[in-house]
């Protein structure tokens, strides 16, 4: 059994070149999502989806980064990807067992099993997985399962020219990320922090296998501040459901008792 693998995306090193997006599309032979101009900085990809498994966000801020001395503007880039949550909402909610955790600890959708029910889509707290209309099935980042099996690293990490995307054993990555945060803090960039690196950081997902180093609020990157896997909360609904079902049977009995002939005759 190989070690658990993952991504550590250090957004302070990202230059917004989109090489990861291109490499991902190319290796996985993903079709295009249409060519459109959004006007949202240099981001014409918009969001992760069925045929977009890496997405570089461009954040234009009217505020400087801490060590920056001149100008009231800063530009943040961040390459978003499936987080391969330690407790994955899509996996737990999948009614067919199409979504599995593979030997690298990654969350993988088996395209030959998925029947396109769409339940994983509403169960992903990050809005990653999506159904492809043309195809009817749910798709998302596979952590380059095929490349890993051939001892290659994922296409996005391989192509990243600044090593903003690190791939490796999750344990090593966590340590590397903590050292990097400390280094940045020493350099004066005190707003740097890790997003979802450990269970303590993000109890709702019990930690991400693809975590990030950010320098602004998660919302700025379109990431949820305190995400929770829906299956962690669904117990409340099951309790109400049980009580309601019992109540319905009792109401039926009461209706028969008060409305039936046995009583009036």
């Amino acid at each position, binding site marked *: 059994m190989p070690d658990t693998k993952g991504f550590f995306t250090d957004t302070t090193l990202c230059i917004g070149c989109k090489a990861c997006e291109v490499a991902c599309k190319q*290796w*996985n032979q*993903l*079709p*295009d999502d*249409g060519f*459109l101009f959004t006007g949202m900085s240099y981001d014409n990809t*918009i969001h992760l*989806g*069925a*045929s977009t498994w890496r997405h570089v*966000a461009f*954040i234009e801020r009217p505020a400087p980064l801490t060590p920056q001395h001149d100008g009231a503007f800063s530009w943040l880039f961040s390459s978003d990807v499936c987080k391969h949550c330690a407790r994955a*909402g899509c996996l737990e*909610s*999948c*009614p*067919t*067992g199409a979504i599995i955790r593979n030997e690298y600890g990654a969350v993988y959708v088996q*395209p030959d099993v*998925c*029947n*396109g*029910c*769409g*339940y994983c889509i*509403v169960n992903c707290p*990050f*809005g*990653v997985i999506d159904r492809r209309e*043309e*195809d009817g*099935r*749910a*798709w998302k980042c*596979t952590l380059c399962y095929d490349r890993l099996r051939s001892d290659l690293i994922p296409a996005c990490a391989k192509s990243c020219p600044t090593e903003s995307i690190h791939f490796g054993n999750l344990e090593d990555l966590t340590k590397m990320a903590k050292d990097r945060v400390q280094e940045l803090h020493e350099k004066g960039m005190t707003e740097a922090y890790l997003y979802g690196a450990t269970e303590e950081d993000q109890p*709702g*997902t019990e930690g991400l296998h693809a975590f990030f180093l950010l320098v602004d*609020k998660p*919302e700025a990157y379109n990431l*949820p501040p*305190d*995400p*929770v896997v*829906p299956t*962690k*909360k*669904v117990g409340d*609904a099951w309790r*109400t*459901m049980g009580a309601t*079902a019992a109540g*319905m*049977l009792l*109401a*039926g009995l*009461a209706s*028969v008792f008060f*409305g039936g*002939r046995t009583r009036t005759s």
Partner: protein
Amino acid sequence: MSGTVLHKGTPNAVSTDGRDIDQNVGKLSGEAAEQRASGAAEKHIKSYAQNWKSLPDEDTSDTTYYDRPMLNDPVWEWAIPTYYYVGGLTGASLALAAASQIGDASSREGLIRRGHTIGLIGACVSGGLLIYDLGVPSRFYNMLRVFRPTSPMNMGAWILSGTGGTAFGALLFRGRGGIIGLLGEFCGYLAGIFGAGLATYTGVLVSGSAVPIWQASRKILPLLFGASAMSSAGAFFEIFSRNPEERRITNIFGAVGQGTEIIAAIVMEKQASVVPRVGRPFKRGLSGFLWRTAAVLTIGTMASALIPNRTRKRRIIVAALGTLGSALMRMSIEKIGTASARDARASFHQQRAGYGAAEMTKARSA
């Protein structure tokens, strides 16, 4: 491949499917090679262009990413809310039929039989609707490939199968002599239990999700769906039954459902609106309009039941309006979820207010 377009940029036109791979030369073997690619891109563009037609958000004091949605849209369309209605009617009818079986049931045979018939037909229609909505309908049987309690949808597939099977058994074997008749009797009771599950689990299915407004409704939604199912069954018998005893029973059953439905709806809207931004789809847009209309119809039909000496014709009209109310309510829940998923602020505000994972960790330590 259907929808394949010619690549116009090259001197010798090569066929491409959106990957810019000349399939005469390149081999499709990547992880996404199985994705069929034709025309999806245009649809994708259209859906975003649709979003741009709406005005930018007036509340821009807090951070978002260009006001873009954080979650992906739910993909369910009309078939799923219709299933909520049909499944509810089916389940509640079976629950009432099972309750009617207890004791001396000879005078209620008609009601029981009608309940089981609705149960069987309803389960088949429900199955059809669910299969229709799948991305790959031919793989519907994969739903029963695993037994997975963490997935409400998987549990639902088993509940629906159980409902259909037991209703069929009850219809086939009840009223026969000996052990076969007993088996039929048992099937009827079991169908009642499965039916009560079928009418209520859909509330779990919807609220077990990351969509902020659905998640915030999770403690009430199964009650709302269950109560609405009872009122649907009441209205259905009101329209199709002429037996006075049967109608007395179903009227009580439906009225209890309707009363509970109204209370549950009020409590749910209140609970979901604890974080104001989360509760917004109840009040605005198409979703809010549907939700309010459904409430007016339900309250209206409930109030009209108090008017004495109604003719049969009038009763049928009222029951039909009540049914419309129940169906609209299911539809509005779907629309409310889509509106909520598109509003990144709903998720952000909910989680910042302590209703994300914090809610769970707090509950555990308390």
